[in-house]
């Protein structure tokens, strides 16, 4: 039988423990709010300033010295083309490297060093990639200050993210799937192409999109390789013009991207340009959110089809 005094003591302990519980959950909410509220305030402020500026003309006009005529046509087209080059080069390289490291590479000190280096690469400031790309792509390969140089630079930047994501999602596949496949006499490549890649594609895709969402807002490396600030024309579309352009002419065209256009507008003396910058910022955040939304949707669709 418990004595009443003991019971009180136990209750006191429970109350104290619950108080700590409450305290910590408050602390957690507070920490969460610091991040969420900051973003919300910034985003709402930008939306209030910028959304009234959004119009069909804003998306179809080139930059101009007159704030009310200025638009983001060259910027959003540039951003999308650069992202296209980035995705087309980074995804095959990143996924292939990730698969090799997980499935093929012998486990020895060389692979260990490579692994450490990949993790380190993810932490290098983006400006360093810009300097490397300036020397390698712009001058050595002679790509110039083009969409190709920018796309490849950003591809280098997000390569570690894709490699790590690929490896993580391959590791999440149960070992029994590997073993089952090998037990049936499959080669490594058959295992990879029939089992590993399909099952890990949801995770890889998430990694790719996270990487792309990082790349879309990058300004420093793009400025380093020499993106332009005023550009009032679009890259020539394939087969357009006279004489007709080649299929890949656009890839060497000069360009600008959304963050650079925003940056240029915020440093103007006229207040009207700040509104333009806010509107462009809103579009950029929307592009990022749309990409993340797409990632969530695709992941959901791909996961649905996997039945172990």
């Amino acid at each position: 039988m418990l004595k009443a005094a003991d019971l009180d003591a136990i209750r006191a302990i429970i109350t104290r423990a619950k108080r700590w519980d409450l305290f910590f959950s408050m602390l957690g909410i507070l920490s969460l709010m610091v991040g969420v509220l900051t973003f919300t305030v910034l985003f709402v402020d930008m939306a209030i300033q910028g959304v009234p500026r959004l119009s069909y003309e804003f998306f179809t006009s080139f930059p101009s010295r007159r704030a009310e005529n200025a638009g983001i046509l060259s910027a959003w087209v540039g951003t999308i083309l650069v992202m296209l080059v980035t995705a087309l080069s980074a995804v095959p390289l990143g996924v292939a490297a990730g698969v090799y490291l997980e499935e093929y590479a012998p486990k020895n000190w060389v692979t260990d060093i490579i692994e450490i280096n990949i993790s380190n690469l993810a932490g290098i400031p983006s400006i360093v990639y810009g300097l490397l790309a300036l020397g390698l792509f712009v001058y050595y390969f002679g790509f110039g200050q083009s969409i190709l140089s920018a796309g490849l630079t950003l591809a280098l930047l997000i390569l570690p993210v894709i490699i790590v994501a690929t490896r993580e999602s391959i590791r999440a596949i149960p070992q029994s799937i590997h073993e089952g496949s090998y037990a049936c006499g499959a080669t490594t490549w058959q295992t990879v192409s029939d089992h590993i890649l399909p099952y890990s594609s949801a995770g890889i895709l998430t990694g790719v999109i996270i990487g792309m969402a990082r790349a879309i807002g990058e300004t420093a490396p793009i400025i380093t390789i020499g993106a332009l600030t005023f550009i009032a024309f679009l890259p020539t579309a394939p087969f357009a013009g006279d004489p007709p352009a080649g299929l890949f002419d656009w890839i060497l065209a000069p360009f600008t991207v959304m963050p650079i256009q925003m940056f240029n507008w915020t440093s103007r003396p006229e207040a009207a340009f700040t509104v333009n910058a806010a509107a462009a910022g809103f579009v950029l955040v929307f592009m990022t959110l749309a990409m993340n939304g797409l990632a969530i949707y695709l992941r959901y669709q791909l996961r649905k089809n996997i039945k172990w």
Partner: protein
Amino acid sequence: MKSLKIAAVVAGVFAATAVHAQALVKIDGSSTVFPVTEAVAEDFQKAKKGSVRVTVGISGTGGGFKKFCRGETDISNASRPILKKEMEECAKAGIKYVELPVAFDALTVVVNPKNTFINQLTVAELKKMWEPAAQGKVMKWKDVNPAWPDAPLKLFGPGADSGTFDYFTEAVNGKSKSSRGDFTASEDDNVLVQGVSRDNNALGFFGFAYYDENKGKLKAVQIVNPKGKAVTPSIDAVMAGEYEPLARPIFIYVSAKSMDKPEVKDFVEYYLKEGGKLAKEVKYVPLGAADYKHAQDNFRKKKTGTAFGGEAEVGVKVADLLKRDPKE
């Protein structure tokens, strides 16, 4: 190494396909000159109905000359004359150029609107505030002039990489880049505008356009010119030659090699014809009509080189500059 070669071949294929691309004028350089060149580029492309493409970058005057002297750009925007070192770089690469003044910028000294005791300043007073010897010593307004209050002196100015800073220090302290270091510096002039408009004890300087757009938040200080007259910065005052010594010419440098390309030639002709009107629109001060004409002559005659010989100069008349025999 093999992969490098393959990449180089791929690059070659791309480069070959780009040969028949449209006529392109490549411009880079100073952010101060950018608004004028941008306005000219915008209208020029419209006038040409898009048959010529113009790109304008902002690498700063120094960064622009680096690219220009490597032959990467056709035209370089410059808020100060080319320096000796840059002349040598260009000479080494065999790049010759024509130097053309295109407009004036009026460096504007501003204080907070609540500041009632400053209406005008002499260059000597500015020097007392900004000279290197003032660092850590001239910390209060009364240290400059005993009649002024015992309040902290808060200084705002552009960063050391800007041509604006170079010109101001040359004009006020007598030597380019020589200044006290303990002031709030920013490459973004809007930050300076914010700083001065929020601090009652602040004084700052930047280009006229930034003052003109923020007149409600700032008070422009009259500058006493060498003739002893206090002049308010304005487009008219600069055009009359009275706003001295803080009015400075800004330039474009055209590569002699690029001048053979019809699109570059057309662009520069257009710049010198319409530049004055467009400069005024973006709050810069146009040169006199005769000066634009003279610049056009120099351009057509391909008078290569710089009228400055690699040295900074203050208070020189544009008409005299254009008459000089340029050195290479």
